[in-house]
């Protein structure tokens, strides 16, 4: 019933997340945009689950577990980077650039 509108919202949120990742330089804000993309995918799962059975909602559960693990490890990495470089601006973190 609401599948079409829900998928449109999901697509918009995902594109906004991609836009944020491409536009921002602050590592933490980029990380938040990744979370936004995961949530857009969750919305698509839930929208399909309404039509095709409850398995989609279980996938959302797993996506949330992975997102929680990813947030913990990612923020620890950002903390470690900040301790070395005293910045989270990705412009200044270019050690691998030849």
């Amino acid at each position: 019933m609401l599948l079409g509108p829900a998928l449109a919202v999901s697509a918009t949120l995902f594109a906004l997340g991609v836009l944020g990742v491409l536009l921002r330089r602050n590592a933490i804000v980029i990380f938040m945009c990744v979370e936004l993309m995961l949530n857009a995918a969750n919305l698509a799962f839930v929208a399909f689950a309404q039509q095709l059975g409850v398995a989609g909602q279980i996938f959302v559960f797993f996506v949330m577990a992975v997102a929680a693990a990813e947030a913990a490890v990612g923020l620890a990495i950002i903390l470690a980077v900040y301790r070395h470089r005293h910045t989270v601006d990705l412009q200044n973190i270019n050690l691998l650039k030849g």
Partner: protein
Amino acid sequence: MDGTRILFGGFAVLAIASAGLCITRRNPVASALWLVVTLFSLAALFVLLDAQFIAVLQVLVYAGAIMVLFLFVIMLLNLGRAGPTDLKGPLGLGVGVLLAGLLLVQLLVLRQAGPAAGGPARATAEQGMIPTVARPLFTAYLVPFEITSLLLLAAIVGAVVLAKRKL
């Protein structure tokens, strides 16, 4: 039915608007708080899509735990003030908007390929309730569920190892 659609539209607009504000605010704290608004509106959308249990999880895990972790790290690194803008220059801006717009068009076209709208609508009143979600979770999906605990354990150990100054 009509009220559901109106509520859905309202929360959808709220989610998209606050996501837009989230990716454009200079201050990381403001960004995080707008993301919390997006997550709450998504929880409301989940309720409207018959996924009440997932909506509760969304509020508890995302808006509660994960965003607190983000805000905590922002405060810990003392990034809570609006610095000079960290948006990329005009070239990066143009390329970013172009790529994101292309992706949006592709996703909206892909929407046509979904299952037929008049398919078997199995939405019952209890679809998103805890028993309906929990039964397959602990039978058909038991092994992935248990592996999730291993993943979380690895994440805990990894976070401690990375964030500790000296082991």
